[in-house]
């Protein structure tokens, strides 16, 4: 019985966005990453070949993280004390890009300075040739001071600077525009808020090709279904032709998953949760893979074993079979 396979044709497509610039393009990166460009829902090869793989980022910090789970720290060993070596290890672990997560403190426990942020970014850029996302701590004044300095000091690298939020995006967008960088926008799990912020950012003159959209997610068990559905709706809107949603989606399953008790701790939890380390990696992996099914283009992870598994999923999904 020959049945015609229903194929969707969409008027819209996601913009392709490139992170990182090689020497040829005025940067120092040895590789670049291009994400987005989708013309179909995720991985539907029978409609169109997916143009770019979803990529894996690993998250690192400029000072040894204090509140990270022991399960992540032990997987990395002593490189976590040195952002340059840690960034290099991310490359060896198979990451496509690195996310440097600036905190509120510097190495001596004092308030973080723009100078310390710039030095940390330099160390990372020297340690790895991968493209970089720099994420500030999330307090408007501090973020603006740090990211302006970082943007100026790394002109032409095509870093992505984050996070642009509804209450604070102007200075970050201006710094990115002046120095050939990109920005990451973040809105709290809502299609309209996500669109609204893109309108504000593009109104300043930043082209869509220099924006990554983080619609926020919850971890498995902690609201993933909201993030999952918002991503599916954003991707449908993009394909239907809504320009302000046609951006690659970046999400942080690593950060979210490792906040949960299921991943973070191994003691004082129910026996039914099973072996801690395997459960923890699984928590991060299942969160990430579900979000990739919903349309994630960049997933930011923490544990190298999760990265290996998620990469295995992407390998499979990028093969038509």
């Amino acid at each position: 019985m020959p049945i015609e396979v229903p194929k969707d044709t969409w008027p819209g497509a996601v913009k392709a966005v490139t992170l990182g610039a090689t020497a040829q393009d005025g940067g120092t990166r040895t590789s670049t990453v291009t994400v987005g460009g989708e013309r179909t829902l995720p991985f539907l090869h029978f409609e169109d070949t997916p143009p770019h793989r979803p990529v894996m980022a690993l998250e690192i910090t400029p000072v040894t993280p204090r509140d990270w789970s022991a399960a992540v720290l032990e997987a990395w060993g002593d490189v976590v004390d040195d952002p340059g070596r840690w960034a290099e290890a991310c490359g060896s672990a198979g990451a496509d890009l690195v996310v440097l997560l600036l905190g509120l403190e510097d190495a001596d426990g004092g308030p973080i300075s723009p100078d310390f942020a710039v030095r940390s970014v330099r160390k990372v850029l020297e340690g790895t040739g991968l493209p970089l996302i720099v994420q500030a701590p999330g307090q408007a004044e501090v973020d603006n001071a740090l990211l302006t300095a970082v943007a100026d000091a790394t002109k032409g690298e095509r870093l992505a600077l984050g996070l642009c939020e509804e209450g604070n995006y102007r200075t970050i967008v201006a710094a990115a525009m002046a120095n050939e960088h990109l920005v990451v926008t973040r809105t709290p799990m809502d299609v309209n808020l996500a669109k609204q912020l893109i309108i504000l950012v593009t109104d300043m003159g930043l082209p869509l090709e220099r924006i990554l959209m983080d619609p926020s997610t919850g971890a498995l068990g902690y609201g993933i279904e909201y993030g999952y559905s918002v991503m599916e709706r954003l991707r449908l809107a993009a394909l239907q032709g809504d320009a302000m949603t046609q951006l690659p989606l970046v999400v942080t399953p690593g950060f979210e998953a490792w906040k949960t008790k299921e991943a973070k701790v191994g003691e004082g939890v129910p026996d039914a949760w099973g072996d801690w380390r395997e459960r923890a990696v699984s928590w991060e992996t299942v969160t990430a893979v579900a979000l990739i099914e919903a349309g994630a283009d960049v997933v930011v992870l923490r544990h190298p074993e999760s990265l290996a598994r998620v990469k295995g999923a992407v390998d499979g999904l990028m093969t038509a079979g």
Partner: protein
Amino acid sequence: MKLAAKQVELSDCPYVTEEAKSELAESAAPPIRLIELVGRGRQVRAGNETVLFRHEKTFYNRPGILINVLDTLERTAIEDKVKRADAYSVDYVGVDLRIDGFAVESASGDPARFAETVSGVRDVSDLPLVLVGGDPDVLRAGLQVLDGEKPLLVGADPSNSERMADLALEHSAALSVAGGTVDELADLSDQLKSKGVEDVVLRPIADGMGASLALQTQIRRLALKNVRPLGYPTIALIDGSLDPAMTSVFATQAIAKYAGFVVLDAFAPELVYPLLVLRENLYTDPQQPIQVQPSLYEINGPKPNDPLLVTTNFSITYFSVANEVEGSGLPAWLLVTDAEGMSVLTAWAAGKFDAESIAKAVKEFGVADKVERRQIVLPGHVAVLSGELEEELPDWNVMVGPREAVDLPAYMRTVLAEDRS
């Protein structure tokens, strides 16, 4: 009109002929047939889905998660695996999550051995079964030890489908058909239907996650377009034998993308717990936000002199607060009021989160008996409630916490800690 809106049943109408009834019932049948497997008094069902994306309406029937058992295993190993999986139960936000059944797979090809394995599984579990094997005689041996049950038979292909259909009809079992394309699957399910088999399950065979996603998507799309031969739930047999670490990855896709039954070849709590939670999350009705049970929750083992925070029972609100407090490592009591599943601001605006309802919860959950420190912390967004709450709870010191959950750890470390000393 009422019929179209599903307010009355067709059978209630005295003027419709039997013939018209069956025609109308056919066209009104859900696009994906509901298939129920029955064990010894226990059931699992799949099907009745109506959408491609959960936000369009909701996903209805949580895919059954079953554990596979090979008949070549030692009997004690089989019993051990089945016992552990059968007894498995984990609490997730007050919901008891469990495994739904077992698949028994003939690897030996020996009918006697298969029957023995099936009866071995039955000795230690009442859950529904899936019988897997390509030889109808082997499956028959297994069926003979199952009385009054409705298992699913897996193993029909073009070469044996006639005999498999007879077997399924004889034992009123459901029957799955395997195929690598929608054409193959539709052909086989059509053949079964013409033989009288109504309870069909599709088993899409695809090499790798990309091909599997494509086939599952095509089946769901066509089923929703009322292509009846594809209007059945699907089963995914997850093969983690080459790389056990990828089992949960493959199963994640199966749960998210349309499988009705998911069979895992291994059982371990750390493998199934995340998958059961994923299934719970994705099958939550988006129109009806999940609520947590109003209660006095203990976070990080609080003592009577630890702080008391209050919030509403909207799941995301609860989890944001509970997660931040839990992540901080600081012990606290969290009083969750019944705000009909609304977030703090929405509930306050709707009059579902006010001084009265908070005071009521304090009384209902015996807070005063457990918490000695007479201090209650309101969410910052409802600072306006503090005056009224002081009147409702004259013995308590009402404090106003941060607006956002993310600022709670810092607040607890500074304001609450200072206050204590």
